[in-house]
């Protein structure tokens, strides 16, 4: 078990393992995605209050949890990179920033198109929305800091420090925004909860979509990591051999 885990720390083993693992991940993800989409969009009954508009939750809620979970994952990778100097951890941390940021933007975007018919406005300064927006800012900051460095290793360390500072700060930001929101309860007290009261016909497709989006997140991170490995390890023999083989076979697939 641990052996397997340690091996993932080596770029070469990561690459080989994901080569075997990727087709399965593709299959499972697209199966879940198609079932979730068809069920969620067509077969789940309309909500008694929001009608068919609630169908946006099937992408909104999973993307929110991926945005947060992705940051936590990035912080773990940053810590592993800082403490044990694991190269692979930094590769994953690097590619997680844009992917997580994109899911964060998806969450905000779908949320605002959900809010317009339900709350009557695209944007309110609700506590959850505001802290998601700040999370997006932090994602952008981490990616911007890394790309500002010319040296890959300095950029990696700097981004790790910032990621860890961010993870200490995020709960405080969350708390402050909650407090601020209760103080300024001016616009509306329209917080909307989908969990709990809904029948299983509504939340089972959400389950499917949740895992499907998680699969897409994993796929994106793995595919980008593999490219990053090829770039960073391009001087090693195994990458050269691999590229030689792929070019000769005319393989264009990932």
């Amino acid at each position, binding site marked *: 078990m641990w052996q397997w885990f340690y091996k993932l720390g080596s770029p070469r083993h990561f690459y080989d393992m994901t080569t075997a693992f990727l087709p399965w991940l593709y299959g499972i993800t697209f199966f879940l995605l198609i079932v979730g989409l068809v069920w969620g969009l067509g077969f789940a009954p309309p909500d008694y209050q929001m009608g068919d508009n609630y169908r946006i939750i099937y992408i909104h809620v999973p993307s929110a949890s991926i945005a947060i979970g992705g940051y936590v994952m990035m912080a773990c990778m940053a810590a592993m990179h800082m403490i044990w100097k694991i190269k692979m951890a930094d590769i994953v941390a690097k590619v997680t920033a844009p992917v997580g940021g994109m899911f964060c933007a998806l969450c905000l975007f779908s949320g605002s198109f959900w809010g317009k018919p339900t709350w009557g406005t695209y944007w309110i300064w609700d506590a959850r929305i505001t802290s998601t927006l700040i999370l997006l800012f932090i994602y952008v900051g981490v990616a911007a*800091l890394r790309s500002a460095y010319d040296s890959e290793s300095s950029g990696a360390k700097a981004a790790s420090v910032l990621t860890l500072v961010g993870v200490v700060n995020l709960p*405080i930001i969350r708390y402050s925004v909650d407090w601020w929101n209760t103080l300024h309860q001016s616009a509306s007290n329209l917080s909307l909860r989908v969990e709990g009261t809904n029948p299983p016909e509504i939340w089972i497709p959400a389950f499917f979509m949740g895992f499907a989006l998680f699969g897409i997140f994993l796929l994106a991170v793995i595919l980008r990591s593999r490219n990053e490995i090829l770039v960073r390890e391009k001087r090693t023999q195994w990458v050269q051999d691999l590229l030689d083989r792929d070019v000769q076979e005319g393989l264009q697939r990932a």
Partner: protein
Amino acid sequence: MKSQRRTLNTTACLCAGLQRELLLALRSPGNTINPLMFFIIAVSLFPLGGGADTAYLSSIAPGVIWVTALLAVMLSMESLFRSDYEDGSLEQLLLSPQPLYFQLLAKVFGHWLVTGLPLVLLTPLLGLMLSLPVAGYMPLMLGLLLGTPTLNLIGAIGMALTVGLSRSGLLLAVLVLPLSIPVLVFGAGVVDAALNGLPVAGLLAVLGAILALALSLAPLAIGAALRISVN
């Protein structure tokens, strides 16, 4: 040889660092005055841009003063590490046998004394210009007194991360402003609460708690970041 080396104890080390900061500030007063000028000018833009109606101004005064103070602190951070980085004394600091943690603390505290504290002392004037109600002055100043050191510490992390880059001003803002949001929220909240006749002690305590957390953790992050930048 080791026994002959003169080692300073922590207090002396703190004092020496502080003394150096203050002396440097005295020799280049621009670093102190420019953030203050920015603070005053930026605040006076709000009536020009948003209208000089007294009621309107007093309603936005706490937020405007806090946001502008935050920006002024960010702009003042440039002088904290930049010249030290360029003349190599930052490297000396990292190599010196004294604990880095306390040296950095002294450095940031010294920087706060010459940029943050004048900012706090200047706020009554700006409150006057934005017709802040009388009840707001004390909470505003107390809040800034507790908040600006935290902003300095957070800004120092950002500055330490970007000091090695040639153009870091905008990047610094992108990194640091989201992290400063709690201070802004509670700082402006203190004034709001006071104007609405609510107790402010609890909120000041929260600001103090954030400061304590920043004091204990930020120097570690600053140190790690400086090691990366100096390399």
